[in-house]
């Protein structure tokens, strides 16, 4: 087996900035694997980000997220935008492996040089989106992608997290699946900027539409003055002329973006997003450092066992460790 060479990060990022696909692909793998150079990579990449339109697409499996993404990519390509897509699938909690099957539904763009699609496994982040997702999006931005779609699992928590990454969030529902009830329960509907009622040609679509409108009208007063719009669509049809609502959807996305810009909310939203990401990274790094330290001294196992035996409790352990690490300069 060939021994692994230390990757030349500087060179790779340079190439990335010229739009080089292989560098992008390799860098994404490196940040996914959280290699030692992870922070260096992101430091180099970050200054070149912040300008792309990031659109989150969420919703239950089978709602048609991927087919919508497929069409939206096409529409933005018509406007000559470079488009990226990050599609997330769940990792098995038992084996750690994953079946990444979303590319299949994005076949129309498989030969388009202006489109970059990457499949990500959730890798143990059962609740919420992984840090890697943020970093992958940054890399695609630095590569030159102007519009980036992020498609989530639809598992619940990640749907709420998507707000932290994307500036426009689409929630995809379908008639008669009870998704609308589920979404309401999880509070997701209030978070989405646009609700896409896909498979709008099915029986019960009109009823569902009215129901959604009713629900939104009594929803808690949001802190912003953008009322979530509902766009009915048909994203899967055997003939192109039977597709519906895609142009309207693109227009609505545009309207939301205009609203954000004109209302200055865009800055506020960015502030909150960065705060959230900072928090994630801090949490992650601190946990790594502390656990590493504890393991090194053999204390981690001792602590956990003492908690199991009810001789100690998690809060006392944390207080003790923090006092030792943070407040006494050790």
């Amino acid at each position, binding site marked *: 087996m060939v021994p692994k060479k230390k990757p030349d990060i500087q060179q790779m990022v340079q190439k990335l900035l010229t739009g080089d696909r292989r560098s992008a692909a390799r860098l994404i793998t490196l940040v996914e694997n959280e290699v030692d150079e992870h922070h260096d990579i992101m430091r180099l990449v970050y200054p070149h980000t912040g300008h792309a339109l990031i659109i989150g697409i969420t919703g239950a499996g*089978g709602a048609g997220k991927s*087919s919508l993404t497929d069409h939206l990519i096409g529409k933005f390509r018509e406007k000559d935008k470079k488009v990226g897509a990050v599609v997330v699938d769940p990792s098995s909690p038992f084996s750690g492996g994953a*079946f990444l099957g979303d590319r*299949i539904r994005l076949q129309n763009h498989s030969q388009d040089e202006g489109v970059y699609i990457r499949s990500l496994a959730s890798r143990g982040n059962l609740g919420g989106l992984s840090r890697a997702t943020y970093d992958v999006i940054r890399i695609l931005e630095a590569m030159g992608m102007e519009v980036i779609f992020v498609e989530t699992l639809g598992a619940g928590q990640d749907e709420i997290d998507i707000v932290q990454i994307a500036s426009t969030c689409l929630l995809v529902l379908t008639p008669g699946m009870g998704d609308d009830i589920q979404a309401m329960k999880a509070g997701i509907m209030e978070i989405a900027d646009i609700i896409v009622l896909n498979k709008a040609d099915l029986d019960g679509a009109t009823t569902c539409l009215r129901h959604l409108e009713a629900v939104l009208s009594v929803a808690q007063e949001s802190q912003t003055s953008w009322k979530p719009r509902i766009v009915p669509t048909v994203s*899967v049809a*055997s003939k192109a002329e039977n597709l519906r609502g895609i142009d309207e959807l693109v227009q609505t996305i545009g309207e939301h973006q205009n609203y954000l810009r004109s209302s200055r909310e865009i800055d506020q939203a960015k502030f909150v997003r960065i705060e959230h990401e900072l928090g994630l990274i801090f949490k992650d790094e601190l946990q790594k450092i502390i656990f590493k330290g504890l393991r090194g001294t053999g204390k981690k196992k001792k602590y956990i066992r003492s908690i199991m035996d009810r001789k100690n409790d998690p809060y006392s352990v944390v207080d003790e460790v923090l006092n030792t690490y943070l407040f006494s300069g050790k």
Partner: protein
Amino acid sequence: MKKLKNPPDRKTAAAQAGDCNFFRNLSGFCIKPVYSIEDIAQLDEKTDLGRPGDYPYTRGVHETMYREKLWTIRQLGSLDSPSRANERIQHLIGLGATGVSICFDMPTIMGRDSDDPLAEGEVGSCGGVAVDCLDDMRHLLDGIDLEAISINFVSNSQSAVILAMFVAVAQERGVPLSALSGTMQNDILKEYQAQKSYYFPPRESMRLTVDTIQYCSQHLPRFNPISISGYHLASAGATPVEELAFTLANGFTYVAEAIKAGLDVDDFAPRLSFFFKAHNDIFENIAKLRAARRIWAKTMRQTFRAKDPRSLRCRIHTQTSGSSLTAQQAENNIIRVALQSLSAVLGGTQSLHTNAYDESYSIPTPRSEKIALRTQQIIAHESGVINTVDPLAGSYYLEAMTDEMEKKCHGYFREIEKLGGVISAIEKGYFQHIIADSAFRYQREIETKARIVVGLNAYVEQEDTEMEMREIDAEFEKEKIANLRALKQNRDPHRVQACLADIRRIAQTTQNLMPILVNAVEANTTLGEIIGVLREVFGEFREASVY
């Protein structure tokens, strides 16, 4: 010294696994150590069994079955070029085959001509015939007595065109259409569920299927316009009970659609036929076929109110299981095929196709295909099982298994009903998910040795025996393309354009497409051209769910 691996000790394994878990058939039913008269206490001889040839046909669709006429010995007679396939068909007939199956190459299956760029490298693939135009059909059927030999066209999405070519050739020869026997596989529902060689969306495909059924009911009364297939579902991973349930559900869907289109059930139902797989488990196979007949008869009478007794008879073609054959120690496959064939005969099949032992890695050689054919003849003439009809009836085990199959089927029917019917269930990925799960489970069983396959995970040998192979003609693709180009140059282009325009127009109405298709093939319009127009009108189907 060759390394030999032994299977686990069955007693120990069974004890460790908890007896029942170890003794399961492919469908997952728990098999008891002993079956006794209590297990068939509920069996009513009149309503559950009947006599052979009588409702509910559990014991067989004919009164005398093989005593009067053997099942059709139907072997595969295709090869890349139509003329070579024709030779092979004649050869098989000479060996004693009473029926022939013809399968097509990948491009033809996918509705593309040999000169289509997507067909590159695949013309004549896999021992299938490349059929682009009427001339190919002429060569294919040259010298074959169409009134005596039953031909089974293994064609699905492109069936309407193949049927049109068959009709055109028969008419040219002056053979009355009413004398033509044979089958068109023409089962599009299973394509969506398993084999995936579909192009149009489900509802448009159904229209084409109903067109062919209607046309045949009017013009080809001895021809089976459809062979409702479970074989492919099983090959994709479906267990025998899943195969049975899904196939019957598909059958009922075709009946419902044809009735919706205005046909009277007794006008077409007598010619619906079925195609099942003979897996390794002997009794499971027999039970499956008997349950199929019983369920079909009862449902056709009670739900669809068919009056003609022929509408209630589930006529079956069986093929031995290709997916059970191993590439390792391939000669073992001869025994597998023999046992599977025996179970099909004991199950009362009307027609049987035995696989050649080398089909696990190749197109059959003349030697291997002869052994496959002789297998059927030996069973017919030497085993004695044909001397009486449904010899195993009354077996506690078999009758209990038949009942179990029937009961489980109704469970699947209810689930499909809840999803809104077969087409709706297809769109939701219901069948595809179940089949993929079963395929995965089967592989895991082999990996963990819960299921033993001789030569594969037990009694494994390091070296492979030298096998002779059938030669494949590398020049064929070029030749075929050249012929096709010549045809396109020499035909009347106006006639072709006119036909294509008519096809486009009629496809958008509810008129039966078959007559114009016959005209079109007579004008030398190619398969690819016809399918191309239909693709534009009907659209293309993309599978919504993967897993």
